[in-house]
């Protein structure tokens, strides 16, 4: 028994090596794509056909089913990216730095999507594509932070220095995430307050909430699948000199 638990622990840490992680990630990717499509279909069905029309905002509110999950993911992915970057910095593990590098563009896309769908929502509701509201501005900064991280990593030639410099930048930028999250509370500006909270029951209709949660799960699965795909490519790129990559079926052709 003791032997078994020891082994499973060993197996976990074995995955920190790119050569061990590469095939596992490959096996997991189809699984997460299936979940993405399943949650996506269910979420879209609930959000378009089941969820009621909003009393105040009419049909226009339905963009919430993309807007809110995208915003959540943009913040969450930043935290995950910074965490991987930090782990890479402290323990000098190669795979964690690759994970951070893989997550960054996905997070940037999520932040962009959040801003863009927000603009689509803002135009009919507030009469403006963009206002300099605290939450919008801080989300924009988050987008810039992602771009900065990507640009910094791309412009440093030595891989290890790029990883470490990116990690420091990612960790410094974490300061912004709580600012976005609490911005609707701290500054009472145009952006509406949070409709979903951990501490009190939701202020929205249950079907709306379900639609949003299903879409959030879909975005989650998408982000995981994309990260795994991207990290596999990064592993191939960085480990291209090693034997195990040279012997891969897909590399040999």
């Amino acid at each position, binding site marked *: 028994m003791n032997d078994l638990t020891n082994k499973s622990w060993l197996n976990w840490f074995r995955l920190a090596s790119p050569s061990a992680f590469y095939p596992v990630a490959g096996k997991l990717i189809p699984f997460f794509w299936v979940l993405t499509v399943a949650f996506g279909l269910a979420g879209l069905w609930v959000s378009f056909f089941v969820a009621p029309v909003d009393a105040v905002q009419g049909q226009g509110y339905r963009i919430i089913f993309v807007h809110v999950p995208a915003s959540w993911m943009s913040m969450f992915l930043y935290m995950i990216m910074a965490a991987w970057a930090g782990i890479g910095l402290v323990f000098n593990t190669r795979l964690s730095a690759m994970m951070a590098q893989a997550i960054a563009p996905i997070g940037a896309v999520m932040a962009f999507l959040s801003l863009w769908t927000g603009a689509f929502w803002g135009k009919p509701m507030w009469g403006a594509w963009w206002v300099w509201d605290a939450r919008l*501005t801080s989300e924009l*900064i988050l987008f*810039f*932070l992602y*771009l*900065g991280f990507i*640009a*910094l990593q791309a*412009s*440093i030639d030595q891989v*290890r*220095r790029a990883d*470490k*410099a990116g990690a*420091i*930048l990612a*960790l*410094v*930028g974490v300061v*912004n995430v709580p*600012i976005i999250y609490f911005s609707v509370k701290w500054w009472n500006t145009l952006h509406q307050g949070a409709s979903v909270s951990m501490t009190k029951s939701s202020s929205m209709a249950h079907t709306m909430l379900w639609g949003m949660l299903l879409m959030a799960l879909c975005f989650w699965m998408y982000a995981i699948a994309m990260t795994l795909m991207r990290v596999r490519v990064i592993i191939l790129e960085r480990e291209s000199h090693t034997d195990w990559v040279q012997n891969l079926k897909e590399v040999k052709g």
Partner: protein
Amino acid sequence: MNAFFMIVQRDLLLVMRRKSEVLTALFFFVIVTSLFPLGIGADAALLRKIAPGVIWVSALLATLLGLQRLFASDYQDGTLEQLALSPRSFVVLVLGKITAHWLVCGLPLLILAPMIGLQFDLDSASLETLLLTLLLGTPVLSLIGSIGAALTLGVRGGGALMSLLVLPLYIPVLIFGAGAVYAKSVGLDVAGHFSLLGALLILALAFVPWVSAAALRIAIE
């Protein structure tokens, strides 16, 4: 502490030998702020309203100009490596270099700002607030900027990249700095703005020297 003052003194001496670099950033500040009335029009009421933002944004950009030189020449001639290897605390030495940068790039802005403010027809109360916000804010600019300067050290296209990294992090300082002057000019309470600027300064002082030192160690590794 002695090492700290030695570094400040050395960097100031180096700057005094090559004054043109400092003056460039200062003239940049004066010229950029003077361009706004020409571009927007000479409506005094409008100028009064945009003055805090214009002066603050120009101060950000002028600081950015000076940042590129913060570690670059020491990096090129190997001094930085010697500093990192020295038995003195590298963090203190880095803080010394940042302090010298503020004395050269931040402090002169403070001295020039009232003159620019007068060009924009600011009243004396607003000018006073502007000076105080710059006094609290420009050290934060130098501190945060040093992280960007350290991260992009020796990187091709480093200057443009540094603006991309640093400017987003400058936004809070800009919001509260310019916000305080604007609030003062319309007769609102400015204590909150000053508390937040002070908090930013304390936070930056507490963490940035370590972060910059770590980033520099990565660069010279």
